């Protein structure tokens, strides 16, 4: 089942990238997609029934809007710190505990954290995420856990977990 889902995803991306519906193009795409799904299928998401729940797509769209807003804020934040003559930075690496169970959800959260203001995920050990933070405002673990991961955790839990 997961091989089939991965094959269909590869095929969609191939058709979008080449943007032609000729027969020989589709045959090449199918061969490449079969190879990809045979080699990488075992690393793919285990529970493929998640793909067929419309609720998850709905939350994904809401998450995307919030994420884009945070991403824009992140960019203005970094631009401000870079252009400010005194460079207001207080960097450090902090530990954040995650409440997510599935591997995909953790991966998405780590990627989202990398794109949000001032944070960059360094390493993921079981359910502890190490985050490099450009401006460490507090040294209280509970508060910065909320500040770093709290914004996205509930949405990602609904989408991927």
């Amino acid at each position, binding site marked *: 089942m997961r091989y089939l889902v991965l094959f269909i995803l590869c095929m969609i*991306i191939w058709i*979008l*990238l080449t*943007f032609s519906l000729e027969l020989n193009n589709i045959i090449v795409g199918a061969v490449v997609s079969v190879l990809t799904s045979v080699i990488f299928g075992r690393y793919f998401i285990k529970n493929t029934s998640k793909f067929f729940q419309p609720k998850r797509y709905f939350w994904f769209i809401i998450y995307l809007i919030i994420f884009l807003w945070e*991403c*824009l804020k*992140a*960019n203005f934040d*970094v*631009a401000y*710190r*870079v*252009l400010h003559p005194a*460079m207001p*930075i*207080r*960097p*450090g*690496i*902090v*530990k954040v505990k995650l409440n997510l169970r599935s591997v995909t959800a953790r991966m998405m959260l*780590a*990627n989202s954290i*990398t*794109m949000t203001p*001032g944070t*960059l*995920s*360094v*390493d993921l*050990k079981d359910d502890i995420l*190490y985050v*490099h933070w*450009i401006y*460490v405002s507090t*040294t209280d673990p509970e508060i910065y856990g909320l500040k770093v991961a709290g914004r996205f955790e509930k949405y990602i839990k609904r989408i991927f977990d």
Partner: protein
Amino acid sequence: MQNTWEGKNSMNEIIFKILLIIGILFNLFGCIGLVRLPDVYNRLQSATKCVTLGTCSILLSLLFHFGFTEIGIKAIVAIPLLFFGATVAAHALVKGSYLFGVKLGDQSVIDEYKDEAEKSSEDKKKMNKK
């Protein structure tokens, strides 16, 4: 190829130009950060965030210029690939440079990764001996 969007629809041209300028500006900020910030970790922050958004903005502006044609769709497909590529590459670079022994800058306040990094490097040494 007949392009109905180009020239006739000036609104799209304006959005195209604004997005293009924003993208170039953010790429510039990212590069200034790359020069000004003190250590590897802070530099990667500016390199991933600003440069990714700048390039995504340039790609999005292509969609407005060409409409939903071959080039526009390709630009849209490139955005998620670029996003995942940039984040995963930043993660790999940061982890690799920490385990290699690059120190955090002088201004750093807190470092909670130290113990974990020492543990994993000791594990690696044991693996090599075996």
